[in-house]
């Protein structure tokens, strides 16, 4: 029955997948085959990235995903995880605005679901990519209890830039 579900995914939510792709998924995953827009998580199996809500977000998925996601598209001389980056951004942001610490920690939480898209992708691949990323980010912030991200976004952005400069100046990146 799961196989029928894959073929019947509404076109408004997902790009339809071909019969060949569905067969490949069925062959690989059997009855647990994921639909085309689902991503695998550490703790919570599969989640539909286009339908993600705050109720789907789990700290273990975020922490594990960010700890194993490297900054700078992997082009670093040593491991520089997004989790570590987020810890430093949080610390710097809290100095600028004490209310920004949690927002700073969670500012890249969406990358546990999307991976780390480097800036050229975000800047040049159009609104579809950023729309998906923003909706996931919103769900993550809501789940973490960041109720007014607009208030602290300036401090977080400033801290994010400072840590990026540090990563570059330290030749980690």
């Amino acid at each position: 029955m799961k196989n029928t579900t894959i073929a019947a995914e509404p076109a408004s939510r997902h790009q339809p997948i071909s019969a060949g792709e569905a067969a490949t998924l069925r062959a690989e995953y059997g009855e647990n085959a994921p639909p085309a827009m689902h991503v695998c998580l550490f703790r919570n199996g599969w989640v539909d990235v286009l339908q993600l809500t705050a109720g789907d977000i789990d700290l273990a998925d975020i922490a594990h995903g960010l700890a194993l996601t490297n900054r700078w598209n992997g082009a670093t001389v040593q491991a520089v995880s997004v989790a570590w980056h987020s810890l430093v951004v949080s610390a710097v942001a809290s100095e600028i605005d004490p209310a920004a610490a949690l927002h700073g920690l969670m500012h890249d939480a969406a990358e546990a679901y999307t991976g780390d898209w480097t800036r050229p992708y975000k800047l040049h691949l159009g609104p579809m990519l950023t729309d998906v990323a923003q909706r996931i980010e919103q769900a993550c912030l809501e789940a973490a209890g960041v109720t007014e991200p607009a208030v602290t976004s300036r401090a977080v952005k400033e801290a994010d830039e400072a840590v990026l400069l540090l990563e570059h100046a330290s030749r980690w990146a």
Partner: protein
Amino acid sequence: MRSEDQERVARARAAAERINPHANGAPFTLANKAESAFVDEALWLMPAAAPMRRRLEGPASTRPTR
């Protein structure tokens, strides 16, 4: 590097050194260390009413499972 950027780097370096003082602020080399530090900090900062915290502290039957 511009002087204002040097100030920003110094500020970020000081924060990094507080997070990992044993390695002069360098990133954690072990992923599980980064993961546990992230969880600790999130639990420290998250308000009690945050949905993510409520799920973690809810009944075992509602906790996420792999």
